[in-house]
């Protein structure tokens, strides 16, 4: 989960975007419900804690310039780490992203950092995906967990890959910080068995008895 070149790159990024902390979290399911998954998967999240560059500005402030400066650095930083902990781009099958804005900021500030091409397009490119990247955002106190949703990186409607990963940084975000999260999984849920669009029956209010009774 570490190498020298990555360290130098991270140190530069830290200076450029006001990075305070980086938290890498990975879960490997060994058994679930008492049995080993047919397709064992790992989930990971990478959370970067940065200063909110817009604290103290009002809602008429144009966010574009700082977004262009900061979001690509963040996208590179967090996807680098995801690739590193999950074993590379081929291994990653599902992805998601998130932002937790400290209480002195606007949700819009988090959105600026994760919802524009300066983050999303780069994350999609680095993880070799095609789907829109699903997300969660919140304004919250330090230590509040955020559930980040994931779905398949090239076929978002693949139901087996609908999953979430819980992210939390113990002492962030401070009121004037933003936590930006990239998350991914190497496979489906441990025991997926709820079908898919291809196998679903046609369900409408006229043919589902429970709705009518």
């Amino acid at each position, binding site marked *: 989960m570490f190498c020298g070149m990555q360290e130098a790159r991270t*140190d530069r990024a830290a200076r450029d975007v006001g990075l*305070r902390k980086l938290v890498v979290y990975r879960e490997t399911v*060994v058994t679930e419900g008492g049995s080993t998954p047919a397709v064992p998967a790992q989930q990971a999240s990478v959370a970067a804690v940065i200063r909110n560059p817009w604290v103290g500005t009002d809602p008429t402030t144009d966010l574009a310039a700082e977004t262009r400066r900061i979001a690509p650095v963040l996208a590179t930083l967090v996807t680098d780490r995801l690739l590193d902990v999950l074993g590379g781009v081929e291994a990653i099958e599902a992805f998601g992203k998130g932002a937790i804005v400290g209480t002195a900021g606007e949700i819009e500030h988090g959105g600026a950092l994760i919802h524009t091409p300066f983050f999303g397009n780069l994350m999609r490119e680095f993880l070799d995906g095609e789907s829109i990247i699903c997300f969660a955002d919140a304004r919250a106190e330090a230590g509040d967990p955020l559930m980040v949703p994931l779905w398949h990186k090239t076929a978002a409607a693949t139901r087996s890959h609908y999953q979430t990963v819980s992210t939390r940084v113990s002492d962030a975000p401070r009121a004037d910080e933003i936590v930006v999260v990239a998350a991914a999984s190497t496979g489906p849920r441990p025991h997926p068995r709820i079908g898919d669009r291809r196998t679903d029956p046609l369900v409408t209010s006229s043919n589902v008895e429970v709705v009518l009774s």
Partner: protein
Amino acid sequence: MNVRKIVTIVEEIHEEGGRQVTPAARVAIVAAVIENPWAGQGFVEDLAPGIDANASDLGKLLAPAVLEALGEPAEAYGKAAIVGLDGEVEHGSALIHTLKFGDHFRSAANGTTLLPAVEKRGPAGIVFDIPLKHITDATIRSHHQTIEVRVADAPHPGEIVVALAAAAQGRPQQRLAALSTEQ
């Protein structure tokens, strides 16, 4: 030993107190969520067979994993056992407070001191702090530190979370006078 999941966490601090930390301060944790070996057995007087069956295997699993996650030599270390609500804290202590468990980490990290520990009981998603101290001299103040951990869905009532933590350095902006200056 029935393992449900393995969690790996690495924290890097790049700035503390408004100043850069270069290189970043790194702490790694690896936690195994396992079935409580004594679950459903009522009060078990003799824990030794369960310890013999699990403690060494756990140490062997976690020690190399946490050092690999850290990616650097460990200078401080610590451990944790968080018991699900149906178990006794004694069950967690049994798994981590024997040489069978701890020696794997001490030997892999070239450490000599006892591993500071947290043992507690709680629900899934409980937040716990792992204390860390220097691996060869527990009086070295710069290395007294704590790392906070949470696994969202563990421990279940019949599970135990067993974790090791390793730090590559002391606190990010450590600047306390050594104990010897007061003696």
